[in-house]
């Protein structure tokens, strides 16, 4: 699924990285707990989270997350946006709460991290 499609499905706003909307994400992972993200997420995923501080971007970087979508209308601060831009990591934001955001993407065919066998 491309980020463009994610954007449409979630009615999301692109906060940074609008040039990379053709980029493809292979699966999704929703969590506010970065330790869980580090433990379970696979490469080339879309991370959905309510955590907007720079740690979300750092975590994404460690595990090769392709893009982050912030849920329930949480807008990240400039420090987070700047860090994401320096790493070339696209950021999106949707007004939808976590459950609905994940649900819509799943319904549209984006698999979860435990379902897709994928290694770079």
């Amino acid at each position: 699924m491309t980020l463009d499609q994610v954007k449409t499905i979630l009615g999301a706003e692109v906060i940074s990285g609008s040039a990379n909307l053709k980029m493809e994400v292979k699966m999704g992972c929703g969590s506010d707990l970065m330790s869980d993200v580090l433990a379970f997420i696979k490469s080339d995923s879309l991370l959905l989270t309510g955590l907007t501080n720079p740690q979300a971007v750092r975590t994404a970087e460690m595990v090769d997350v392709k893009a982050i979508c912030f849920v329930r209308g949480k807008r990240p601060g400039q420090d987070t946006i700047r860090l994401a831009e320096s790493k070339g990591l696209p950021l999106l934001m949707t007004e939808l709460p976590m459950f609905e955001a994940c649900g819509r993407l799943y319904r549209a065919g984006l698999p979860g991290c435990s379902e897709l066998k994928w290694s770079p």
Partner: protein
Amino acid sequence: MEQSQGIGRVQELTYELKVEEVMTRNVVTVSPDNRVSDLRELFRVNRISGTPVVDAGRLVGIISIEDFIKCLANGEMDCRVRDRMTSKVEVLYAGEPVVHAINRFQVSGYGRFPVLDRESGRLIGILSKGDIIRALLKKLEIDYQEEEIHRYRASHIFEDTVADRTSLTLEYDIKGKDFDNAGKASSSLKRTLSRLGFHPQLVRRVAIASYEAEMNIVVFTDQGRISAIVQTDGIVLRAADRGPGIPDIELAMQPGYSTAPEWVRELGFGAGMGLCNIKKSADEMELRSEVGKGTDLRVTFHLKKGGP
């Protein structure tokens, strides 16, 4: 062999690249009401040999230097463009792969195709064979540079070094309670290991362990150090601090056990998964700690032959 691989990559690129990525966006156009004589300056100044004819944003035709020459020979320079243009225009759409365009050039023998946006039907660019060649060369150059970086591998450093034992030590100082920079050391370590050419899976495992260890140092101590010792047979990650120490290591290793203050959860950590994550990523893990003196974590990652 090399050459056939090169051609293979070019063919791949013609499928990967879309027309809109290679086309010229700033299209010079004429109105159907222009006179053929106007084309002379237009073609000369822009160094082009043909141009789309656009009426109110819609593509209505195309006129080329051949049409112009015919008019010149027949003394029809005062004719309107609309009367001398080709109005049945063959076009390409923005999202088509470049390989389609190449086939169209071959079949039709045309020098250029106007490019339309499929939804709006508007003219958004023009594509010539030159555009395709330029884009392919540029893309190949980028590929080549990336490959060059890739070739610069850790194994080469070790292969070129003659010693009984070789190791490369990367050290990072971590400041406690500095949340703006928390994760920066692990980020630098990850980038360095990638550049050294380690397998992405291994780099990822080291990065996860390093990041969790770094967060522990930032949250619980005033300062510490993370080091990675890169050897021929693996990577040893060390995280050492002079913080409060861990009273009961066995308890601390239990998933979900945490002594982190509530505010750490706002950072997305402090759920008692850190040490478990480190252990999960590692091949070996050794944790030593003394209350009041500090903690010393040693994590080993083996370099397996032919894999991560």
